[in-house]
């Protein structure tokens, strides 16, 4: 028995698609140069999947982008959580690192792009560094908060039970902070996608951003659409993958369902 929300969603989507087809097609309200009609989009999709566009076929572009996002995300999340753990646990570390962090933090990650290009050119390493600037921050902040917010009595109970240092870290601190850490990871992933697309738009050989760039240069609206849809789709897929991992790792957690899956 399909839900009401499901039915409304399907109806709305169908209506929008119909509107799209009509507006760009028979009615001529929107010229296909400004906004591609469904058949034009389909054409572009077929082309990029088979013959290729912007130097390679769609799968190659997808793999390039997704691989970079995951790499960048892992590096940023890894460094962010480790430093966040240290800062959350030991106030002295936090006191030393915080001012530097507060200095760098307000700088929009994308504004590092020109500098990173000067440093590393248009290499993959440049893209990873740009992603790092963006994705590092939420991972750090949330991990630090997660550790700070561990209820004191849990830590005391662990000490009372004679828990040695390393088990305290692995078995108590990290599990306790994990829900908040995952919030940070979600934000990190989002930031990773945003910066990667930007970086690929600025300069790249392959990738979804590159498709978008080429499509813009050659004024190919159908391909722009395909590029955007691909970015959206894979952004969503990676987010779902992370959510799945989260649900497994945090199986014990009586989590609150988000109203709009933020």
């Amino acid at each position: 028995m399909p839900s009401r929300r499901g039915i409304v969603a399907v109806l709305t989507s169908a209506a929008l698609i119909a509107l799209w087809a009509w507006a760009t097609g028979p009615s001529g309200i929107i010229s296909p140069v400004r906004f591609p009609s469904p058949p034009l989009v389909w054409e572009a999709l077929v082309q990029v999947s088979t013959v290729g566009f912007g130097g390679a076929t769609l799968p190659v572009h997808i793999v390039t982008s997704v691989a970079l996002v995951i790499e960048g995300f892992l590096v940023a999340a890894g460094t962010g959580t480790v430093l966040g753990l240290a800062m959350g646990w030991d106030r002295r570390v936090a006191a030393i690192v915080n001012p530097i962090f507060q200095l760098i933090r307000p700088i929009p990650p994308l504004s590092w792009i020109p500098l990173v290009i000067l440093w590393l050119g248009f290499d993959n390493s440049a893209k990873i560094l740009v992603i790092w600037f963006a994705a590092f921050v939420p991972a750090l902040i949330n991990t630090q908060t997660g550790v700070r917010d561990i209820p004191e009595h849990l830590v005391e109970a662990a000490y009372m039970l004679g828990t040695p240092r390393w088990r305290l870290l692995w078995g108590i601190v990290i599990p306790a902070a994990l829900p908040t850490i995952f919030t940070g990871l979600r934000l990190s992933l989002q930031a990773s996608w945003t910066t990667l697309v930007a970086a690929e738009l600025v300069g790249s050989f392959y990738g979804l951003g590159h498709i978008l760039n080429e499509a813009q240069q050659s004024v190919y609206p159908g391909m722009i659409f395909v590029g955007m849809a691909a970015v959206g789709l894979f952004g969503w897929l990676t987010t779902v993958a992370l959510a799945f991992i989260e649900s497994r790792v945090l199986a014990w957690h009586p989590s609150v369902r988000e109203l709009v899956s933020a």
Partner: protein
Amino acid sequence: MRNRALRLSASARGGLGLLGLAGFFGIWTACSVTGLVSATFLPDPVSVIARLITLLDNPYAGYTLPEHLTASFFRYGSGLLLATGIGLPLGLLMGWFRLIDDIITPVFDGLRFIAPLAWVPFAALWFGTGLGGPVLIIFTGAFPPVLIGAYRGARLIDPQLVEAARMLGTPHHRMLTEILLPDAVPSIVSGLRVAAGLGWQSLIGAELIVVSSGVGYMMVQAQSAVSTRTVMAGIIAVGLVGSAIDFLLRLGEGAVRQRYGVLGPSK
């Protein structure tokens, strides 16, 4: 033993903080001054600040720094205004009326995963190099948090408050303006703060590509001309403005929360 329980005095914190900053700037200066890293890569801090000051009066890539910042800010403000103007009422309506929620949410969910900058080619197609392009990008960045903030504020109302209001015979219009709306305000303001940050970030991204003025544009031109000092000066300027915006909004959020008597973390 128990470093976590350690409470540092303000002076200890300050001292350690200064140590960190000194270390950071020290290493930076040492690297560039001694030539360990070439000055093209990493100019020393002092020359960057000097460059920043020069740019205040001397034009680069067409305008002085303040002029670039103004252009940027104008786009930013427009984008933010648009995002708030649409996102706020829409979010509230979605929160209050299930049907609207059901209609809009799938569309929103479909579009939100498209990174703001992925809209650039589309923006270029529709708006060329006019104002519309960057504004659209900023809109896509700032819109989701505004919408979600308003939505949450509208949805997460305590049912007992509504029941109490009904018991007291509150008419519909007053229910809206004096009960439902004020209750949503803290969440709305929280969303606005996030939107302001994301909007500023999207702006810079947009300016890297589709415009011919503004701080982002200035930085891209400087990068082509390999003027690292200018690029770094731009980064500092952008960071300072971003801080100022966040600081002001933080004050605003604090004032709102005081006024509305909100306890605990934002919804």
